[in-house]
């Protein structure tokens, strides 16, 4: 048999760390459930099963301390009548935390954390529930609890039948006596002159430490005589002598019978419970762990294929133009469309591999909300919906932190204290809802609370105080523009940073993360009624459906889902309001952003046509002025490194079938640039393109 090698061991440990995290997660979840339904046996069983698996796994990985703690906990949880004073849920949380800390310690090879909190709770649990433990702790001094063997009891019975008295003598050896083993021998010898020793604990000659000796004696002498015999100065301290009640040697085991009676019933309910959960188990199973990198590779190749497809398509089109009568043309077209369809399916399947339900992210919130709520003395009810909505794994990981921040904010700032709430006529328990759903190729995550809402006036005051805007500017801003200020860097101030919410992530960071992901964050609030944050994300970062357009002869693209409509206009239709160019569209005033240069104001100026892409951005509508439209295309995004491109106005590039390079506009950055340009004077457009400098782009404001 091969050695259990080191390499295998470390592989095992790596796997253990991974699976252990999942186990802890479900421990947390079950504890939360249990907190709500403390009497639910099925949840307790599920917790026990989790702890059980953790115990086995950690033992196999060689983490004995963890295994041992899990073992203790598992046994404590096996008690079927939990002590009402100790919350099992609390034990679950404490255990999850301790296990988590132990895992970290193992991983980093640092000293293990203190496991006492768990042990103390476990002890409380078992000490007041199981009679058995109570007995164990009493054993020390109660002579009745020394267990005499059947043979000894039989001997006692027989002696009694012979008319002798049976005594149980407990002699405590003087703590100063240096030789307790010899002392025991002395007592036994002394007593044996007037009584027959039927049994002795420790057994005669046993070389064990111990400060007392228990003797079972048969004698015709009195209790006093026995006690007197035992009093050996400086050797024996206290002596307790009691009459031994002899019962029939054949014993009954009521305790045992009880336990067994529970057995079959248990199994049955276990089975029932299991049957009930089969459906769910089926859904969550057959998992395959694959390195994310491998999937990315496949995805990249699919991307290349898509490019190859468009190359082919163009070649065929060209061929069709040149020889429209060739029957081969139709066959090419057929093959082409077939290939396109398969490729489409392939792409979708590969994308699906990377998709994971947002549940993976949402799972952590119940526990977090609970902890945060406890710390700020709030009562919170968390409602989670849409857990099974899919999202690209990398996106999921990326929004974890911003989302956590928003949820924490909702608890600590959004919701009022129970007293405040009652005063406002609301239920004391606040509600936070977490929802996820798909909408037009986007994932929407909403975090809403029914708290106090955000007071626009206070935002305004604070923004002015923090010099984000001048009082003058602020006066001209709409409510939604004012609210938008809370996403600005520097809005969140030091005096607001608490242990809970101020972890170095402000809402500005939330927004910048979302922008990096080509997503947006919006805010909706009503004073006294609550606040809703809405995060919008593309489903994947790798491939987007995009609208292609040209500015200054250069090709650009923006994600199609941001485009609300395309309008046509003439230069003459444009007006100026403040520093913005605007267009009157459908009865609304649409602020415009000009990406290219403004044409010379010659005679033709007023008539020259332009396209306006109406985009939805952070709940606002904005127009992008572009020169010409090129069509829709599925783009495989290639990220650009900083050396190729030195602007954040472009987030990536893609290659079209004919080999042309298209730059993908980073909309949030563009909008930002325009918005911040508001404060300067006479802005007109953004130079996106500079033919002289090839792919490198320069961007500037003004002329």
């Amino acid at each position, binding site marked *: 048999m091969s050695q259990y090698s080191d390499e295998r061991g470390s592989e095992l440990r790596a796997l253990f760390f991974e699976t252990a995290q999942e186990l802890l997660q479900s421990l947390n979840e079950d504890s939360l459930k249990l907190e709500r339904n403390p009497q639910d046996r099925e949840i307790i069983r599920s917790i026990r099963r989790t702890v059980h698996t953790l115990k086995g796994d950690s*033992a196999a*990985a060689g983490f004995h301390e963890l295994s041992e703690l899990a073992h203790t906990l598992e046994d404590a949880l096996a008690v079927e009548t939990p002590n009402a004073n100790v919350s099992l849920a609390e034990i679950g949380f404490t255990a999850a935390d301790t296990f988590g800390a132990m895992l970290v310690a193992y991983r980093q090879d640092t000293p293990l954390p203190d496991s006492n909190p768990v042990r103390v709770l476990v002890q409380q649990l078992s000490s007041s529930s199981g009679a058995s433990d109570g007995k164990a702790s009493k054993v020390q001094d109660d002579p009745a609890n020394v267990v005499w063997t059947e043979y000894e009891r039989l001997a006692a019975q027989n002696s009694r039948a012979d008319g002798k008295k049976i005594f149980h003598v407990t002699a405590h050896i003087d703590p100063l006596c240096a030789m307790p083993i010899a002392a025991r021998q002395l007592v036994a010898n002394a007593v044996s002159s007037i009584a027959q020793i039927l049994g002795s604990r420790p057994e005669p000659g046993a070389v064990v430490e111990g400060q007392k000796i228990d003797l079972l004696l048969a004698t015709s002498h009195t209790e006093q005589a026995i006690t007197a015999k035992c009093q050996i100065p400086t050797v024996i301290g206290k002596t307790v002598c009691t009459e031994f009640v002899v019962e029939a040697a054949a014993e009954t085991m009521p305790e045992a019978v009880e336990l067994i009676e529970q057995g079959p019933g248990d199994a049955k309910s276990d089975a029932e419970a*299991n049957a009930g959960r089969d459906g769910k188990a089926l859904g969550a199973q057959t998992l395959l762990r694959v390195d994310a990198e491998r999937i990315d590779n496949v995805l990249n190749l699919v991307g290349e294929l898509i490019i190859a497809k468009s190359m082919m398509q163009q070649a065929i089109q060209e061929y069709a133009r040149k020889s429209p009568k060739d029957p081969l043309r139709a066959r090419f077209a057929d093959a082409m469309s077939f290939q396109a369809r398969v490729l489409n399916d392939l792409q979708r399947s590969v994308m699906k591999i990377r998709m994971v339900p947002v549940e993976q992210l949402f799972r952590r919130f119940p526990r977090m909300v609970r902890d945060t709520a406890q710390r700020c003395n709030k009562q919170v009810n968390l409602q989670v919906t849409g857990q099974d909505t899919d999202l690209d794994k990398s996106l999921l990981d990326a929004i974890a932190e911003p989302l956590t921040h928003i949820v924490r904010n909702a608890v600590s700032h959004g919701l009022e204290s129970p007293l405040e709430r009652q005063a406002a006529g609301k239920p004391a328990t606040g509600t936070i809802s977490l929802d996820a759903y798909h909408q037009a190729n986007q994932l929407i995550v909403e975090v809403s609370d029914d708290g106090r809402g955000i007071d626009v006036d206070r935002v305004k005051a604070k923004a002015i105080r923090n010099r984000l805007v001048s009082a003058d500017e602020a006066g001209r801003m709409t409510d939604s523009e004012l609210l938008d200020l809370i996403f600005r860097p520097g809005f969140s101030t030091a005096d607001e940073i608490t242990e809970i919410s101020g972890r170095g992530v402000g809402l500005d960071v939330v927004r910048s993360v979302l922008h990096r992901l080509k997503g947006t964050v919006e805010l909706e609030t009503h004073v006294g009624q609550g606040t809703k944050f809405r995060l919008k994300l593309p489903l994947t970062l790798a491939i987007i459906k995009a609208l292609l357009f040209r500015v200054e002869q250069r090709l650009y693209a923006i994600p199609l889902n941001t485009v609300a409509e395309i309008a046509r206009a003439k230069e003459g239709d444009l007006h100026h309001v403040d520093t913005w160019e605007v267009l009157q569209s459908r009865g609304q005033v649409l602020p415009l952003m000009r990406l290219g240069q403004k044409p010379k104001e010659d005679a033709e100026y007023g008539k020259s046509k332009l396209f306006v892409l109406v985009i939805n951005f952070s709940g606002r509508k904005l127009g992008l002025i572009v020169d010409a439209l090129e069509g829709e295309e599925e783009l495989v995004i290639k990220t650009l490194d900083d050396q190729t491109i030195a602007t954040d106005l472009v987030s990536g590039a893609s290659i079209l079938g004919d080999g042309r390079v298209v730059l993908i506009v980073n909309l949030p950055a563009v909008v930002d640039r325009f918005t911040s340009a508001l404060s300067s004077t006479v802005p007109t457009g953004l130079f996106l393109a500079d033919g002289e400098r090839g792919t490198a782009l320069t961007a500037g404001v003004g002329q």
Partner: protein
Amino acid sequence: MSAKPIRVLVVDDSALMRKVIPQILESDNSIHVVGTAIDGNFGLKKLEELRPQVVTLDLEMPGMGGLEMLKEIMRRHRVPVIVVSSHSTQGASVTLKALSLGAFDFVAKPTDVSTRMQEIARDLISKIKAAAQSRGIQIQSEIELPIPVPRSKGKPAAPKEPTRIVAVGISTGGPQSLQYMLAQFPTDFPGSIVVVQHMPEGFTEMFARRLDECCSLNVKEAQSGDLLQAGRVLICPGSRHMKVKKLPLGDIAILSDDPPVNGHRPSADVMFKSVAEEFGSKAIGLIMTGMGEDGANGLGLIKAAGGMTIAQGERSCVVFGMPKAAIERGHAMRVVDLEALSGTVQAHCRPGRAEVGKAMKAGQD
């Protein structure tokens, strides 16, 4: 070993175990893990699909648990199942339930698994090999196991001195066979039975309780100083040896922590030897189903001391190892199949029969 490796299916809800167990098993060339499953539902599907020869089964799983799956396997597939059990009170109870449902054997995961990996690996591999060779557990199909019914054991009369001491050594396949045999003894059985069942610490107590539930005899896990009484069965606790001793007021069992014998503690050889020394012709040695050869020599000592020796017949053995060794060495005076064991033992325990036995023995010599 045969050329074709043994096909094994591993069912465990722990991802870690689904990796570790196959690794352990495939370190032996004669075992091939054909698949793993996360719970009973998938286990059964894979069972149909992969047709393994042996299944290792974790009992604690969400979804369809181990016991449910085991029932299903026993009903439809009859593939030997080895339970991979954890070491806890709850674990012991469920494991024994599994054994009574027909699991072939079990392997206990101690808490210090990682340091004793080699040992556990050996244990598991040898049990899988035995399971693959066994013809499954026969008694399951042929015999209705007694259903535990609350029964009145009656107030035990004054403990009676047993007519004979029946020492039973048993291993793999033991729990079911023992339960089957013991259930057929009447309350007034005049002999006293001492049992060494190879089973780890912690499992024997629960095992004794279960047996006590479904037998008329009084069954208990032995403690030092327990009396060998008529109608009583003492099961040696795991991880200890059991010896017997004659004392003026009665015969008692004594437990010891002496080192393992034949790799076993408890060891049937230790018990048989002590029974032979103390009781001589009053002893009956019974060697039953199990791997290896523990007890074979001890049985010879009982025979030599004038006692009666019986080996369980091959047909009814789950693993014909220990009885085979005893028979081959000529230590078994009789070979009896499971169905008849209880009757045979009872016949030999009838009062006065010991003398007859001695006479017969004398006649043979």
